[in-house]
């Protein structure tokens, strides 16, 4: 597995050893860049997932509050209803 200490002057395609080394280095750099981009993609995907989770959490909280609000509204008489009831009461007492 050790790196070849000696390299033939020319490989099968007739390229010089310097050129082969340069190509290998370029390949390695490309692989590093692929790793970086893949990580970036996974990272952004994970961040998106977390944000989606937060949105879902907020939506659930909002729905809970809306539900509480509507239940309260159902229990507490509205201003108009109270005003009408007041008027009716006053008329009743006048009659």
């Amino acid at each position: 597995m050790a790196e070849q200490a000696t390299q033939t002057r020319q490989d099968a395609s007739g390229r010089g050893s310097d050129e082969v080394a340069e190509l290998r280095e370029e390949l390695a750099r490309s692989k590093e860049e692929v790793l970086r981009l893949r990580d970036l993609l996974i990272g952004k995907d994970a961040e998106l997932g977390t944000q989606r989770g937060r949105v879902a959490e907020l939506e659930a909280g909002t729905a809970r509050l809306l539900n509480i609000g509507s239940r309260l509204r159902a229990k507490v008489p509205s201003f108009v209803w109270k005003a009408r009831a007041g008027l009716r009461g006053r008329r009743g007492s006048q009659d």
Partner: protein
Amino acid sequence: MPAPRFSILTPVFDTPADVLTAMLDSVRRQRFDDWELCLVDDCSSEPHVGEMLERAQREDPRIRVQRRESNGGIVAASNDALAMAGGEFVALLDHDDELDPRALAQVDAAIAATPEADYIYTDEDKIDRASRHSSPFFKPDWSPERMRTQMYTCHLSVLRRSLVDEAGGFDPEFEGSQDWDLVLKVTERARRVLHVPKVLYHWRTLESSAAGGGEEAKPWAFEAGTRVIQAHCDRIGLPAKAERDEEAPGVYHLRPRLVRQPSVSIVIPTAGQSREIRYEDIVLVTHCVRSIVQTSTYANYEIVCVVDSSVDPGTRDELRQIAGDRLRLVDYDEAFNFSAKVNRGAVRSDGEHVLLLNDDMEVVTPDWIERLAMYSEIPEVGAVGARLLWEDGRLQHAGVLFENGGYPGHIYRGFGGEFGGYSNNVLVAQNYLAVTGACLMTRRDAFDEVGGLSTTLPVNYNDMDYCLKQRADGRRVVYDPDTVLYHFESSSRSTEVEDWEKELLLDRWLSLTATDPYSNPGLKYGIPRLSGYVRARIRLPRLRSPLG
């Protein structure tokens, strides 16, 4: 009569009357009604047993009793109970133990939430003859690697009946550890395994029981455990030999028996620093490489040192002398970025497995590479870590837990090196969300798939992030306690992490780390938080009505 949800299997033999009554009462007190209790009297010699069981059967049609003509032992009696059972799930209850009144209701709720669950287990504690509670066992969520070195799920275990039948019921070959064998066989086939993190089973500590007498009470059970693990490894093709821990009862070890020797690239990023180790000033990386070459028994590895351009030629020459043909030197002349250095070394190496290693390490375990490779070869495993000790022998790393709102922390950091942990969790292999990158083996395909280490985290948390990426990709992370190295990280080193690093980790992984599945609500970094447990156990005296 329609089939019940749960069939409780209870083999009975010469159970003391008060203990048998407590067991029966605990079943009758269940808040969930859809059960049957299958009792098999294994030819008890005490006359009260038969009488009590007959009475219980008369009083409740859900209680069914069968008596064996001869004593057949726990496996035969359990199989008889299984034959009586008609339920969708079977729950295992020993004749001297008790169920919490909420047990079946909680398990049923868990199954209702996850209908594909095939095996469900709960937390447990111990009770004495006077029903005093102690020693709660707060368990992690499903951890296949731990199950191969410790029967940690134990009580209460509830298994889908159809899978129990597929597995062939209780195997007489493993008498004493038949439950462990059955659970392993069922989980090999299971779609989902659930953990209910509540103490719902009370294991009575009688002198005659394993809970009270330990290994001395049932030595054959612990011996059978070795055979259970070996049979499991053989079935799933894990190349390992099971061995029993001579000092810690119930703890087992896997010794690698690799059928092939995959190539391993050990990647060591280094700046060529020196430090005083054992009263001697040494160059860390040369010491590390020397310990690898001198200690390792593995043959098929290379060492890839990613060296800063500032590292002097003398150190480079020394590395070449020590490692010879195994060594590959890769230059790094950019601004410090640990992740970039690791990635650079990894892409310039050929091994099927990449072993990330800090330069301030010293190998202790000769077959450390074999051990890590044994786990790393499992396709569902994405990263494997080791037990690391500081120079003074204290624990530096035995796994990582995410607590305190999703932030990572090393479990038992700074505890004594001999510390076995809570329920021996330092001594047994197990899964975590992350292990330290100071010594971490990963398969190359898994490394490439997740983009290696994140260069956006140049100093801290890149190893945590890496493990979480593996986890998000569906792979497990393993801690192996039997791979030991010294980590000469100064114990007084500042572990300060920048706020932006913390935020980035949370932004990426809070959905995974908010509730660490390998912790438990009853634990904080592996230490029991007993307040909740004690509160639940306190029984207030019943107030009598003044009216009588």
